[in-house]
């Protein structure tokens, strides 16, 4: 119904190429998370789909039909902007009602009120409905902005880092809430974030963008376990994957320049001896900062470990990922 297909999309701003030849199929009802560093083209992708920008080349279809000639209003998408984008002169209630009061929809007023109350309840802003939009905290503003997207039932939701300004608890709550809303509505959702926990917990598919190119697209576990490049491997995983010279450990295939070791993929008690430089007790896990021939390595160990800085420990790679000199995955 609302499958979104991008074919060969290129977008330039002056001399900068924001997106170059991006092709991507978002299945109907999928929760797709776009990951990537700042400037990778994540927001541009959303804006192109919303119709706020026009691509220089390529085609975008929603539900099988090209939307290139359509205005944002005609595309029937809802978007949550990174900078809230609330209407500052209106109350929270009027902000939420704004998309419903569109003359195209002709929603009766009692229905609008019902919808608003429902959404306000879910987002915990029911007590703020009569406040002015500017008299809210950043977190509340962002929830109103999410609410403004939710009151409509569009075929496609676009969300640009909607949770980035919220505190940890609210973020965790809303993550679950968004996931629940997504499965309840069955709508397609495209979501931009920096946060890998959001990507891993919510996404049915993850797209990794790098310098305007789609580096990899697939289920989050596949991206995590089977990254096609060092850049993609570095996008997911906390602590980050250890990227070390391939000859640091024996057994590297021909042509390998870098060995990628996820912190949990380092066996302890065998192999080469490394120095422990620091031990971080995080409660549910303990991170070991190691030094091996001058290279820093981070690994995880038992939360109740007695290891201390200055001691030595033997380590060996397990499930290593090898990359060539240009960062492309070998094996």
């Amino acid at each position, binding site marked *: 119904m609302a499958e979104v297909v991008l074919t060969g999309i290129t977008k330039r701003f002056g001399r900068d190429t924001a997106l170059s030849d991006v092709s991507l199929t978002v299945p109907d009802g999928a929760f797709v998370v776009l990951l990537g560093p700042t400037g990778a083209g994540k927001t541009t992708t959303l804006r192109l789909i919303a119709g706020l920008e026009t691509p220089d080349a390529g085609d975008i279809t929603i539900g099988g039909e090209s939307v290139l000639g359509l205005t944002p*209003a005609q595309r029937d998408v809802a978007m949550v902007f990174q900078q809230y984008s609330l209407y500052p*002169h209106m109350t929270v209630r009027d902000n939420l009602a*704004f998309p419903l009061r*569109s003359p195209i929809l002709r929603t009766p007023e009692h229905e609008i009120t019902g919808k608003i109350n429902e959404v306000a309840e879910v987002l915990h802003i029911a007590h703020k409905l009569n406040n002015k939009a500017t008299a809210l905290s950043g977190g509340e503003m962002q929830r109103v902005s999410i609410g*403004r997207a939710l009151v*409509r039932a569009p075929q496609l939701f676009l969300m640009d880092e909607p949770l980035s300004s919220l505190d940890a608890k609210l973020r965790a709550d809303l993550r679950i809430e968004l996931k629940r809303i997504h499965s309840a509505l069955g709508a397609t959702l495209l979501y931009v974030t920096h946060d890998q926990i959001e990507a891993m917990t919510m996404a049915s598919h993850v797209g990794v963008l790098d310098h305007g190119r789609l580096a990899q697209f697939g289920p989050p576990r596949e991206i995590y376990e089977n990254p096609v490049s060092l850049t993609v491997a570095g996008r997911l995983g906390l602590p980050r994957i250890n990227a070390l010279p391939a000859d640091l450990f024996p057994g590297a295939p021909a042509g390998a320049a870098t060995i990628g070791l996820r912190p949990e993929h380092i066996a302890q008690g065998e192999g080469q001896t490394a120095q422990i430089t620091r031990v971080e007790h995080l409660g549910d896990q303990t991170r070991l900062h190691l030094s091996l021939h001058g290279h820093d390595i981070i690994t995880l160990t038992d939360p109740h470990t007695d290891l201390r800085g200055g001691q030595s420990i033997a380590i060996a790679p397990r499930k290593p990922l090898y990359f060539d000199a240009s960062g492309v995955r070998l094996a």
Partner: protein
Amino acid sequence: MTEPSAESPADKLARATPPRVARRIRGLSDRAIAWIFVAPSIFLLLAVNIFPLIWTINLSFTNFRANRNREVEYIGLRNYERILTDSDIWLTMQATAHFLFWTIFFQVLIGFTLAWLINRKFRGNDLWTTIIVLPMMLSPAVVGNFWTFLYQPQIGLFNYVVSFFTGVDPSSFSMIGQVNLAPWSIVIVDTWMWTPFIMLICLAGLRSIPDYIYEAAEVDRASKWRQFWTITIPMALPFLMLAVLFRGIENFKMFDLVVQLTGGGPGSVTELTSINLKREAFEKWRTGYASAYAVILFVTVFGLASIYVKALNKVKER
């Protein structure tokens, strides 16, 4: 014993300052220092604004004439009574109201439209802004003077342009000389001169609306028309109202432009209150009477402005 080598710069300074002065400065409270700083401005304000105001109120109850050396008598409210029952004064009030209403009406209409057009991003809009703003930078006396030429029935450009579009003979009418046209002649010149001012303030208002608000509205399926009425107008309204307040106060005391242009004539159809007041005070030398007149005008402007500012604040709070 103090060692000279251990002395800090601050100590040296303290030693160099004569002890009495130092103690006196140190003895001043923050409040006293604050008063010392604001005292000059307060003194100026009292001398130039507050004292003349009180003195005018005082004179308004007398029959004082500044050009005659005679005993001044207090005559109570008689000056006020005479002014408020004088039909000529009501006529000047009407002329002023006409002038105020129509200048503000046209200036808001044209000024906002121009601001809205300039605000659309196109090449050379800065140049256009500069050109549009030019009239505002001229001296009112100069403007008044050259518009008398433009309005000249035989050689005036204005009459020629009107004739070009309507076919009316250019020398058949005189903007300044005719009783029915003169009130409009000053409205036109003031609008020509001060529309840019409204435009500039409206432009500031329009530029203060971030693009992403319109983008959100676009995605929320609001038409351009709806965006204009639900976003542009409400968000620019405080600016627009402020511009109207400035123009309103300015035009209530309009003097130079009109004196230069029509001198209050023909008859007294363009005799605005400020011109009328000046005549009473410094041509007829009815000082007491003119003082009462000034007090009435002051109360009117002050009262209207206060009500307006309250409304403005309400709009801002919305």
